[in-house]
C-alpha cells in the first residue's frame, strides 16, 4: 500500500545566500586570486553562489595567518580555548536550522538528515572537544600542539567533516587552514561567520575554497605541520607520497567497501532497516556505507523480498521536503561515476533491480538500486561506488562470511546481524575494520573513535583517540 503525502517543504527563507563569497583569511573575507567558481544546488542545477578560488599565493597567506595566530592560540590557557569552542557549539545550535537548510541546498541531502543527523552531530562534536581543551594532560598523548593544520574535507558531510577536523585541532591548541570540497563550500563559509560571531581570534580558523589544486597547495605548504584529509583513497595515496621525507604528521580517512553481514538468526525486520540505513543514508555518499550485503544463503530469499518491499516505500525527491528519504546525487561527475559502475555491474552479469521511482526532470538523481547474483570479482563488489547501490552476495558459514568481508583492500567499517552474542563477538574480532556495527549501522558519536584499517587510511577521529592526531608524540 502506497501512502500519498502532501508536500512538506522546509522554508529556504531561513538562509540568506550571498551572490558571491571570498576566502576567509585572518578573520575576514578577502578576494581570491583564482577564477571564481559556481556552486550549484544538485537538486535543481540552479547556481547558488559564486565562490572565490584560492591560488597557491592565497593559501600561503592563509598559512601565514594561521602561523601567526598559533602563537596566540597555543599560549591561551586550555580553559579559554574551551570557552571559545563552547561558544561556537552554542552558535551552531542557535543557527542549526539555517545551517541544515544550507547544507541540503548545497549538498542535496534530505533535510531530515541534515537537520536530525548532521547538525546535532556537528554541535556535539564541538561540545565534546571543547571539554578536552583544558584536560589534555589526562588524555595520555602529551599536551604540545603541532602548529598549523592543513585540512581537506569531502562533499558528503560538509559541515560534519569540518567539525571533525576543526574541533580537535583547536582544542589541542593548533590553528587551521581548511579547504572544503569544491561542490559544497557554503556551510564552511557560514561557519566562518560563526567564528566571527564567536570573536575567535583572527587566523585561528582560515577557510580557503577551490578545487584539487587548492587542496594540493594546502597539503604541500612547507609551513604546514599537520595534514588531515578525508576523501578518496586515490588522493590519500598522493598525499601520503607527497609528505614522504617531511616531518608532517598525517591522518587519512579514505574509502571503504563495507560488508554488512546478515546471519540466518538475525531479526529480519531490524536487519532490513539496517541495510537501508547502511547504503541509502545520504544517497550512499558515505565512506563507511554498507555497500556489500553478505546474507546467509538460507535466509537470502526472505530477506531480499523484505528489503525490496521496504525500498518501494522510500521517497526520492526534493531534499528540502521533510518526507524525503533520498535526495540528490551531489554532482554530475558523481552521477556519471555511479552510472558507469552500475552499467559495469549489469555488463558483468549481476541482476539489477530498482523500485518504481520517478526521478525529477532537473538535477542529479539516481534511484535506490540493488544488484543480486554479485560475485567477488565484479567491479561493483570491489570498487567504492559512493552512491545508492547495494551489491548482494551470499555465504554459508561464518568463516566464509569473514573471508568475503575481509577480501578488500579497504577496512573502514562492517556490520553484523545476529541474535547470538558469542557469534557477534567472534565476527567482530575477525573483521579487519575500524568500526564494527553489530545489530545497527551508520551510527556516529563524538565520543566514538572512527577510522580505518588498511587502505581506508590511518589515524582516528573522535573520542580520546582523536586527540592524538593533533598533539606531538611524547618520546
Amino acid at each position, binding site marked *: 500500500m502506497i501512502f500519498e503525502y502532501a508536500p512538506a517543504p522546509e522554508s529556504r527563507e531561513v538562509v540568506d545566500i550571498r551572490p558571491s563569497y571570498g576566502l576567509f583569511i585572518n578573520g575576514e573575507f578577502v578576494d581570491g586570486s583564482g577564477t571564481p567558481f559556481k556552486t550549484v544546488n544538485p537538486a535543481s542545477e540552479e547556481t547558488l553562489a559564486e565562490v572565490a578560488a584560492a591560488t597557491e599565493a592565497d593559501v600561503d597567506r592563509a598559512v601565514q595567518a594561521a602561523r601567526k595566530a598559533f602563537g596566540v592560540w597555543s599560549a591561551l590557557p586550555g580553559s579559554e580555548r574551551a570557552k571559545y569552542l563552547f561558544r561556537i557549539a552554542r552558535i551552531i545550535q542557535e543557527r542549526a536550522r539555517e545551517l541544515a537548510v544550507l547544507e541540503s541546498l548545497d549538498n542535496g541531502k534530505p533535510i531530515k538528515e541534515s537537520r536530525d543527523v548532521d547538525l546535532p552531530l556537528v554541535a556535539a562534536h564541538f561540545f565534546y572537544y571543547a571539554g578536552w581543551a583544558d584536560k589534555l594532560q589526562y588524555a595520555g598523548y602529551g599536551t604540545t600542539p603541532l602548529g598549523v593544520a592543513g585540512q581537506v574535507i569531502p562533499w558528503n558531510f560538509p559541515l560534519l567533516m569540518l567539525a571533525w577536523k576543526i574541533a580537535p585541532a583547536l582544542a589541542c591548541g593548533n590553528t587551521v587552514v581548511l579547504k572544503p570540497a569544491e561542490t559544497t563550500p557554503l556551510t564552511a563559509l557560514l561557519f566562518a561567520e560563526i567564528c566571527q560571531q564567536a570573536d575567535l581570534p583572527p587566523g585561528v580558523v582560515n577557510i580557503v575554497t577551490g578545487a584539487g589544486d587548492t587542496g594540493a597547495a594546502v597539503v604541500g605548504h612547507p609551513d604546514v605541520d599537520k595534514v588531515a584529509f578525508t576523501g578518496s583513497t586515490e588522493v590519500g595515496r*598522493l598525499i601520503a607520497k607527497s609528505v*614522504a*621525507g617531511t616531518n608532517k604528521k598525517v591522518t587519512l580517512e579514505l574509502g571503504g567497501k563495507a560488508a554488512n553481514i546478515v546471519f540466518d538468526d538475525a531479526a529480519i525486520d531490524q536487519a532490513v532497516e539496517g541495510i537501508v540505513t547502511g547504503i541509502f543514508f545520504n544517497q550512499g555518499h558515505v565512506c563507511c556505507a554498507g555497500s556489500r550485503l553478505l546474507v546467509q544463503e538460507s535466509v537470502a530469499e526472505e530477506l531480499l523480498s523484505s528489503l525490496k518491499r521496504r525500498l518501494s516505500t522510500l521517497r526520492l525527491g526534493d531534499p528540502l521536503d521533510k518526507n524525503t528519504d533520498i535526495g540528490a546525487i551531489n554532482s554530475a561527475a558523481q552521477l556519471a561515476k555511479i552510472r558507469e559502475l552500475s552499467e559495469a555491474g549489469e555488463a558483468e552479469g549481476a541482476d539489477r533491480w530498482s523500485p518504481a521511482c520517478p526521478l525529477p526532470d532537473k538535477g542529479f538523481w539516481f534511484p535506490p538500486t540493488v544488484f543480486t547474483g554479485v560475485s567477488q570479482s565484479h567491479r561493483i563488489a570491489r570498487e567504492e561506488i559512493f552512491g545508492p547501490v547495494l551489491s548482494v552476495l551470499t555465504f554459508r558459514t561464518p568463516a566464509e562470511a569473514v573471508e568475503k568481508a575481509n577480501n578488500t583492500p579497504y577496512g573502514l567499517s562492517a556490520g553484523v546481524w545476529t541474535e547470538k552474542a558469542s557469534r557477534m563477538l567472534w565476527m567482530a*574480532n575477525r573483521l579487519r575494520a575500524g568500526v564494527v556495527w553489530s545489530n545497527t549501522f551508520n551510527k556516529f*558519536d563524538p565520543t566514538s573513535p572512527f577510522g580505518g*584499517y588498511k587502505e581506508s587510511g590511518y589515524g582516528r577521529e573522535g573520542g580520546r583517540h582523536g586527540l592524538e592526531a593533533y598533539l606531538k608524540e*611524547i618520546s
Partner: protein
Amino acid sequence: MSERLSVRKTYKLYIGGAFPRSESGRSYAVTGAKGEFLANASKASRKDVRDAVTAARKAFPGWSAATAYNRGQILYRIAEMLEGRRAQFVSEVAEADGVSGKKAGELVDAAVDRLVWYAGWSDKISSLRGSSNPVAGPYFNLSTPEPTGVVGIVAPPMGPLFGLVSVIAPVIVTGNTCVVIASERAPLPSITLAEVLATSDLPGGVVNILTGSAAEMAPWLAGHMDVNGIDLTGADAELAQRCEELAAENLKRVLRPNGKTDWTADPGTGRMTAFLETKTVWHPIGI
C-alpha cells in the same frame, strides 16, 4: 700437538621458522670492528623478501589471535633463552662493535631486560589504548587496539643486538608479525638471535630475519602490497624517503627514523602504538 681447529657456524637467513640460505646463492663477507674477517653472511634477495612476507602473513592469524598472556610468556621465554646464551652474545657483540667485554656484557643485559619489559606490556597496552565510549544513545561502545598486520623493519645499523631487540619486541608483543632487515654492517648477532627465537616457543614466521643490503631490500619491503606497516628506524634519510613514497601505494603505517640512537632511554609506548589499529564495536542495548 697442533691446536684444535674450530668448527665455524654458517650464518643463514631466518624465514618461517627455518634457516634457509638466500635463494640467490649470494653471500658477503662480514668483518669485525678491526677489519678482521668474521664470517660470510647470506645476502638476501627480493625473492627472499617476498618469501619472508609470505611466512609473516601466514603466521599472523595465529599470533594475533594468541592470548596476550601467551604472547607475554613467549617474549619472556625469549629473554630467558637470550640470558642462557649470554657468553656467546657478549663475544659476538664485542667482535661486531669493537667494544670491551664489559661493555658488550652490558649491552646483552640491556637487551634481555628490554625483552622482559616488553613482555609485560602484552596484556596492558589494551587498557591504555582502549576505551569505553559514552555515546549519546542506548549503545554499548568499546574501542580496542589490534595489531596492524605484517610489519617490515629496517633495523638500526648500530646496536646489532640491543637495537635489534628494541625494534622487534614492540612490534610482535601486540600481535603483529614482522620481516626484519638486520644491520648490514653487523648482521651476525641477528642470526644468533634467530636461534634464540627458534627455541623460545615463538611460532615460525612471527619474526623473519634477512641479512644483506638494506638499500637493496628495504624498497622491496616498503613497496610490498601485503605488508601493512614499515619501521624505517635503520634507514638513512634518502632511503627512508624513498621507502615512505613506496609505502604510500597501499597506505602502510610508517614509523619514520627520528635520528635517535640512544637505546638506553625509556622507549615509551610509541613503537607499539605505531603499529596498532583501533577497532570500535557498537551494539544496541535493549530488552
